[in-house]
């Protein structure tokens, strides 16, 4: 679009100079009373318009083609390269992110749910042993009770070693379950790059479309969008926005201001 820069929004300078030239000629012919010649000029003028329209459409088509070509995936597989676009791939990729994060969350929760009762049991056993141990130190324990305690301590150490080891394994598996971040991060970065590319292409399409509008003299009436109370999902940069709460404290303040 570099050729547009020097001229007021939109038109090809070649075309604008042609338009000026012909308009002037038209005025001259009309003033001179040569209407037949004037009609021919009007025809020429509309031809210029059509021509520039074709040019824009041509550019649009090339851009579209380029955009579509840019969306190809898997360069190592030429057949698929023809058939698949990056767009459908992007939704597959994002689906993959959903699956990966879901899998990681479930794996982590499996391990946590598995480890929690064990941690609980360890805690309870340790507490009960501590209480009995203190009774022993205060010499409040009968010999038979002591023998029982002796056995329990023995078993506790045994299971403590096993349980702590299992706990360690669980924790390191939880750690490993976070490896999705690397993979999903890469995928999301790729998709983000694609979205950016699409945005740029769309932007040039919009610019081109506005050229076409300008050439054809079309004016669009834009309807105002009605706002509705719809779910939007997580808000980004909540702290910078006044229409969005930045956390639970904000929600609580808002609700209490409503009498909650």
């Amino acid at each position, binding site marked *: 679009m570099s050729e547009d820069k020097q001229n007021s929004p939109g038109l090809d300078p070649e075309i604008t100079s042609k338009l000026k030239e012909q308009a002037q000629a038209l005025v001259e012919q009309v003033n001179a009373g040569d209407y037949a010649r004037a009609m021919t000029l009007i025809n020429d003028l509309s031809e210029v318009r059509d021509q520039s329209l074709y040019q824009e459409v041509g550019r649009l088509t090339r851009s579209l083609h380029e955009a579509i070509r840019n969306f190809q995936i898997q360069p190592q597989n030429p057949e698929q390269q023809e058939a698949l676009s990056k767009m459908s791939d992007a939704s597959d990729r994002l689906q993959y992110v959903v699956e990966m994060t879901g899998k990681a*969350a*479930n794996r982590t929760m499996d391990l946590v749910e598995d480890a929690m009762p064990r941690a609980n049991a360890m805690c309870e056993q340790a507490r009960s042993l501590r209480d009995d141990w203190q009774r022993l130190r205060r010499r409040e324990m009968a010999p038979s009770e002591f023998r029982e305690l002796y056995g329990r301590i023995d078993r506790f150490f045994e299971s403590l070693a096993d349980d702590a080891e299992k706990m360690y394994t669980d924790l390191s598996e939880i750690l490993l379950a976070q490896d999705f971040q690397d993979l999903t991060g890469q995928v999301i970065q790729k998709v983000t790059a694609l979205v950016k590319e699409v945005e740029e292409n769309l932007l040039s399409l919009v610019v081109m479309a506005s050229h076409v509008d300008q050439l054809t003299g079309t004016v669009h009436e834009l309807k105002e969008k009605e706002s509705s109370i*719809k779910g939007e999902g*997580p808000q980004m940069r909540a702290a910078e926005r006044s*229409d969005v709460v930045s956390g*639970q404290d904000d929600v609580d303040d808002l*609700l209490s201001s409503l009498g909650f």
Partner: protein
Amino acid sequence: MKILIVDDFSTMRRIIKNLLRDLGFTNTDEADDGNTALPMLKTGKYDFLVTDWNMPGMSGFDLLKAVRADENLKDLPILMVTAEAKRDQIVAAAQAGVNGYVVKPFTAAVLKEKIEKIFERIQ
């Protein structure tokens, strides 16, 4: 005390289920959107509803309104646990009769506090 957890993401349902269990609420069921939840609620088996807002099918906000409009369910306590953080939305939920509103990401302590507050007010 039977609680229905409504969220389209199974992991979030699982997290809430676990947190509720830690709070002593072991009797929970799950639904993945308002359309699945509403018939379950209409059986009259539930004493408490925890719902997300943004779900395919029927949203949590529509579910909230449907529950309040139902003669048999209108007094059911509802806690919204959602990523929706616009002031308008929170005000709308409050006006529609929500009993508590928790924004994601949340902590176990916040969830506990809101649930306890709701029960306090009911009793």
